[in-house]
């Protein structure tokens, strides 16, 4: 397993840093332009959630290999307020009804594997994997 690379999200500028790092890794892994853009958008959404709702959190990347598949694992860990109703947040149209952002359902569509865990008052952990096609 390759070493993790992480970006702490404190201010809006950090979202750009995370995108940059993620895109560089994605390019190295061999993703094409479209998937690079999707990975960057995924990172943006996850990082923006940390920036907006949690005091402390980071986005980490790992090159992932599973049964011959190569891909990128993006994880987001924060110690924010957590999400009380996950089903609601994962519902289409719930968080995007204002017309802004992709929301978590959008992120889920951008990647191949998506997992979220959250505990109220403790924080949220999200793992998203995009496989090389």
């Amino acid at each position: 397993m390759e070493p993790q690379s992480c970006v702490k999200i404190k201010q809006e500028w950090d979202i750009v840093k995370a995108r940059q790092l993620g895109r560089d890794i994605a390019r190295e892994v061999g993703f094409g332009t479209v998937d690079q853009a999707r990975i960057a958008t995924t990172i943006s959404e996850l990082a923006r959630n940390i920036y907006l709702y949690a005091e402390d959190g980071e986005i980490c990347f790992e090159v992932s290999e599973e049964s011959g598949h190569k891909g990128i694992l993006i994880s987001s860990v924060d110690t924010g307020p957590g999400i009380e109703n996950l089903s609601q947040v994962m519902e289409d149209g719930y968080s995007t009804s204002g017309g802004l952002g992709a929301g978590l359902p959008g992120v889920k569509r951008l990647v191949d594997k998506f997992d979220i865990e959250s505990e109220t008052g403790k924080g949220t952990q999200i793992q998203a994997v995009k496989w090389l096609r």
Partner: protein
Amino acid sequence: METLKSDISNYRNLLKHYIEVRDEQSLYGAEQISKMFIKNNVPPEEIINLHIQALEELHPDMPDYFRHSMNFLLEIMISYGIAHQEHHSLREEQSELKSEIAMAAGMQETLLATTKPEIDCLDIGVVSVSANQMSGDYYHFLKGRDDSIGIAIADVIGKGIPAALCMSMIKYSMDSFPEATMNPKTILKNLNRVVERNVDAGMFITMFYAQYIPSESKIRYASAGHEPGFYYNAQTQKFEEIKAKGLVLGVSPEADYRQYERVIHSGDMVVLLTDGVTECKQGDRFIEIEEVLDVLNQYSDLPAQEMVDKAYKHFERMQNFQFRDDFTLMVLKKEADGQ
């Protein structure tokens, strides 16, 4: 992947042709491809990417600034792609919901089914059409063992599914009342209690309940805040309002209902309706009740069912075939004795 390959070559050929001749035919081809993309749910960023690939094959000497600008455009399209997919899945969800509602509407129809009693002396016509898939109007006939006929017409304030659910409850309560209590004021009193206990405070039901007693040519009736009905006097050929006071069902647990009665003569009619009839609109203007009565008067020589059918057709057309509220109209026509 196969289709993608043929897509690329298709797209490239079409693009090439267009750049060379700029004819309408290639644009028509573009339209076809675009439709196919939509059908196959291809996100916009893929299309931009396809465009970049095709251009690179056609013009390998493409300037860098142009290539960069295309990548920029691709990035712009990502969020549109997500929105597009969300739209797609919401649309699927919507069609699932629609078919569920259609099923529920079918069930409601079965649940609330009532048979128009066929009796010699009273000709009954009724038409009830819902504005949406499920109706908040309701009518019901009950035949008593003493040959009396109970006639209920009701309207839930509110429309759609909640109103429809409410009506099913009303119907089952009515079915469970013992026959001995089947006079209008007792029925309304009992129903009022059911509604008050079981229905959300914001939902009200109005009902007019009439009971026809053939041996006495008499109707008894009571109203729970329902749209007033009309009485047609065959001798004077005039309509008069049936005045009946009573509180809407579900407001107060202690409501009592006053019962009225009158003898009806041969040729006379009783007209019952819901506010979907009186709230018909012509353009921006609500129609006057006189217009409803004029229409009925016009057809008063016809059998009751034909009367209400013709009246319904009249208002349906007036409203451009689009009712805003559930529409229920009932005519009870006393026939000459011995007929």
